[in-house]
């Protein structure tokens, strides 16, 4: 173990601009681990990276079946990247089912690396192959490396007296070693990681290290590979970076926001895919004073959060669409009692249980309108995994400044996707100030701040300011229960005006692409990367596109209407049946064109290019 491991290949090295690689295997094959570690190596190599895990809804689907296939895709590049890429250039499959599921995605002429030993008659049958795919001709046109990975893994461990099951479980490290060699990835950090990851079992450290090296050495020595590749460093803003998923960024951002507000973070939540990691991550942050309550249900999650806000904490609840549906009544209560509340919806395919592990953006209208009565809330949508951190802080800021629920719309794609994140310095992040009650006039619980229209946030324990809040309409002046018709209308309007007023804080919209373009593409949330890359690509082909991507969806930015009218055509790509496009048409009377995809999968860049081009040609 101790000997220096070669860091560089002696074979010729071909330089590539960027590579999309996908690791796929059975759920038990460790593909997420392999993909994550290969991503870390690529980040260390100085590449820009973007990743996307794609795992089954079933925890342990029967081994070898199509339902049990787990995949992890990484895009690594020497130029700036915003998406995990569409069709892989390299596909690594550990069994026939993984091949069956993923081969259609592999780009023409792409490289296919297979574990030959896993293509047994039984596994072929489970994957629905009548014969070995190499015999049917369906692998023609690809560069295929059909390698006896399991056997080579076993050989590397022959003298270790490991049970056969443990030996087989090491084979993902063979793939990782081979790919690390193939793309000239740095290996020191991986070896250190193996040593710490399996520290409890020196035998496994030894085994996985051996197999990793065996994979690397196989690439270096066998004649099967004439050369290896490298992707050079990308130009990235200097700083210390880490790879972060959207869910982790949300957890850290929420805790950071509460700390910046000088308040305790209280998370009331119920586990639900794909939002659960936020609860898990925050539950592990007790030394930060973070309180997490795993509630008995979604309703108690948001209810306890709202109670905590009343008590002076930053109340947060995290969920996905079905859970948010259950929380609707309490969000309405939060609108009525005007307390800070952050509701995170990590959207997934719907309706109902829908596609729990797949991504969709179909809860925008739920966030906007999914409550009884006139019930406006602020809505923010992060655009990248790392942006989830900033959006979470921003949600806390607006919730406290305006005394309102804020719905944060993430989605499965952001939640599980990872990207490099330039680490902020906590001390350099701005403080969040909740306006304290200034005792200049007699206290009334619904007396509003003139600028923000927010009511004072006075918590129990404050002497002489005891008051009652509740879901019944209250008098504009006193805050007492009121059934007066004109007072109700006034209150409905003032609650709406308060939310509208939030846009006073927004910076002007940034317009990417060509400012004088004919076509404006309007997106929101996680489609940012794909739309940006598509617009960049189209403009480089001589087309003329601009791109605007509002961060706040309620209220919308004040300059958006003027921007929309500046362009001949407005196209709104969304992973739904057209939700923002309805809002845009409704609010601005602009004849915006929907571009929709509802497949549980994010937009691909070339797919978006084709469809944007198509709409422009069609409407000429």
């Amino acid at each position: 173990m101790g000997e220096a491991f070669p860091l560089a290949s002696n074979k010729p090295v071909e330089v590539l601009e960027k590579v999309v690689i996908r690791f796929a295997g059975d759920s038990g094959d460790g593909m997420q681990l392999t993909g994550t570690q290969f991503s870390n190596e690529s980040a260390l190599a100085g590449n820009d990276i973007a990743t996307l895990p794609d795992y089954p809804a079933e925890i342990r689907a029967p081994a070898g079946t199509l339902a049990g296939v787990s995949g992890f895709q990484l895009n690594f590049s020497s130029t700036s990247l915003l998406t995990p890429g569409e069709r892989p250039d390299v596909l690594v499959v550990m069994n026939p089912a993984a091949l069956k599921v993923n081969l259609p995605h592999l780009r023409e002429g792409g490289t296919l690396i297979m574990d030959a030993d896993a293509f047994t008659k039984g596994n072929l049958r489970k994957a629905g192959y009548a014969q070995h795919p190499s015999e049917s001709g369906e692998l023609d046109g690809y560069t295929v490396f059909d390698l006896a990975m399991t056997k080579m893994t076993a050989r590397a461990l022959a003298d270790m007296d490991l049970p056969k099951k443990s030996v087989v479980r090491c084979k993902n490290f063979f793939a990782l070693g081979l790919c690390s060699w193939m793309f000239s990835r740095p290996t020191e950090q991986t070896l250190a990681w193996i040593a710490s990851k399996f520290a409890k079992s020196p035998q496994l450290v030894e085994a996985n290290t051996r197999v990793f090296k065996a994979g690397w050495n196989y690439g270096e020595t066998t004649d099967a590979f004439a050369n290896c590749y490298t992707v050079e460093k990308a130009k990235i803003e200097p700083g210390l970076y880490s790879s972060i998923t959207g869910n982790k960024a949300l957890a850290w951002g929420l805790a950071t926001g509460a700390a910046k507000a000088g308040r305790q973070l209280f998370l009331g939540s119920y586990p639900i895919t794909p939002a659960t990691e936020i609860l898990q991550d925050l539950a592990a942050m007790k030394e930060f004073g973070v309180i997490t309550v795993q509630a008995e249900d979604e309703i108690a999650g948001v209810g306890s959060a709202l109670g905590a806000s009343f008590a002076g904490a930053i109340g947060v609840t995290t969920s996905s669409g079905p859970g948010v549906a259950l929380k609707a009544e309490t969000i309405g209560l939060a609108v009525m009692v005007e307390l800070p509340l952050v509701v995170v919806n990590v959207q997934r395919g719907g309706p109902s249980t829908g596609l729990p592990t797949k991504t969709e953006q179909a809860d925008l209208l739920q966030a906007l309108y999914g409550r009884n009565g006139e019930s406006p809330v602020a809505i923010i949508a992060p655009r990248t995994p790392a942006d989830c951190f900033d959006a979470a802080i921003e949600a806390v800021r607006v919730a406290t400044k305006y005394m309102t629920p804020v719905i944060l719309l993430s989605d499965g794609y952001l939640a599980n996707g990872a990207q490099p994140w330039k680490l902020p310095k906590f001390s350099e992040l701005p403080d969040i100030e909740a306006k304290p009650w200034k005792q200049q006039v007699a206290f009334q619980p619904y007396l509003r701040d003139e600028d923000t229209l927010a009511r004072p946030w006075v918590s129990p324990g404050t002497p002489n300011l005891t008051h009652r809040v509740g879901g019944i309409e209250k008098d504009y002046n006193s805050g007492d229960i009121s059934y007066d018709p004109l007072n109700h209308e006034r209150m409905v309007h003032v609650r709406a005006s308060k939310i509208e007023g939030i846009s006073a804080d927004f910076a002007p919209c940034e317009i990417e692409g060509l400012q004088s373009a004919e076509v404006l593409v309007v997106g929101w949330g996680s489609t940012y990367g794909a739309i940006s890359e598509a617009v960049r690509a189209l403009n480089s082909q001589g087309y003329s596109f601009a791109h605007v991507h509002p961060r706040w969806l309620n209220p919308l930015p004040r300059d958006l209407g003027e921007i929309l009218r500046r362009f001949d055509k407005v196209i709104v790509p969304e992973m739904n049946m057209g939700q923002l496009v309805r809002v845009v048409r409704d609010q601005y009377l602009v004849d915006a064109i929907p571009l929709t995809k509802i497949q549980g999968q994010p937009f691909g860049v070339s797919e978006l290019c084709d469809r944007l081009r198509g709409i422009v040609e069609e409407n000429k």
Partner: protein
Amino acid sequence: MSIAASSALSRKDFVSDQDVRWCPGCGDYAILAQVQKVMAELGIARENAVFVSGIGCSSRFPYYMNTYGFHSIHGRAPALASGIKVARPELSVWIITGDGDALSIGGNHFVHILRRNLDVNILLFNNEIYGLTKGQYSPTSKRGHKTKTSPMGSLDSPFSPAALALGAGATFIARTVDVETQHLQSMLHRAAAHKGTSFVEILQNCVVFNDGAFADVSDRGTKAERQLLLEQGKPMLFGRDSEWGIRLRADATPEVVAVKDVKPSEIAVHDETNPFMAHLMSHMEGSQFPVPMGVLRAVEGEGYPVYEEGVHRQIHEARESKGPGDFDALYRSGDTWQVE
């Protein structure tokens, strides 16, 4: 942290400026007055008390208390109160609920707050009817009860609130009735003193939609025969001259016996800490038995941890072992790399 008021308080200090709007003769008036009185006697500063309710007639209660208050949504008061209590354990938190609010739409939160044993007080006004929606049967209405939605009689079997609470692991269960002011006060004091979730079922008369539901228990003429006043360590006797008693048969089922016919040692003795006794008392129903009133169960201390104390103890322990959270260290906790 002390939550006591700096000077002596009277009932009036807990009266808010809002007009009370229950029906004339409603049992809620009596309960409100006793709660205000007891709060003053407890000496809890008004700003340190929070009354939380759901929806229903009883849930208007917080508006009438000059404390902090939250009138929330139907069935959810325990959820709101949990957030308040966990965030601010020093506050005195009271949940005001009814049979529909707590046991029907809010049944889930009710059992879970009892299971967690937060140090809050739950006052359930049980009138065996839906009052605010004007007279439909509730989850405590007796089978066969004719209401607007059960014109031929209710088919539902009623909950025993005490039995449900016991099943959920409640550490304090008491029963009282709106018109017995002294008894009600003493139950409120016991509830306030209990460490853990205190559940008090208050039999409450709805004069409009279910008048007289507890008449036999509360009427001067009959109550001695119909109430079994439970006292810790005392034999279970009832009747005008304590002429009746509860005896356990060989198979542990209770029976009513004439005291004169049995040896004193044969009369069952109440023990608030005995789960078997709590089970018997919470299930003792039917016209052949008196209605047990008083503290059915009270256990606290070791073996009955209080939820919010655990939450804050874990935070304390995490800070002891890891030091106070350092955000910059957190941000760096994954694999990092430097871009020059």
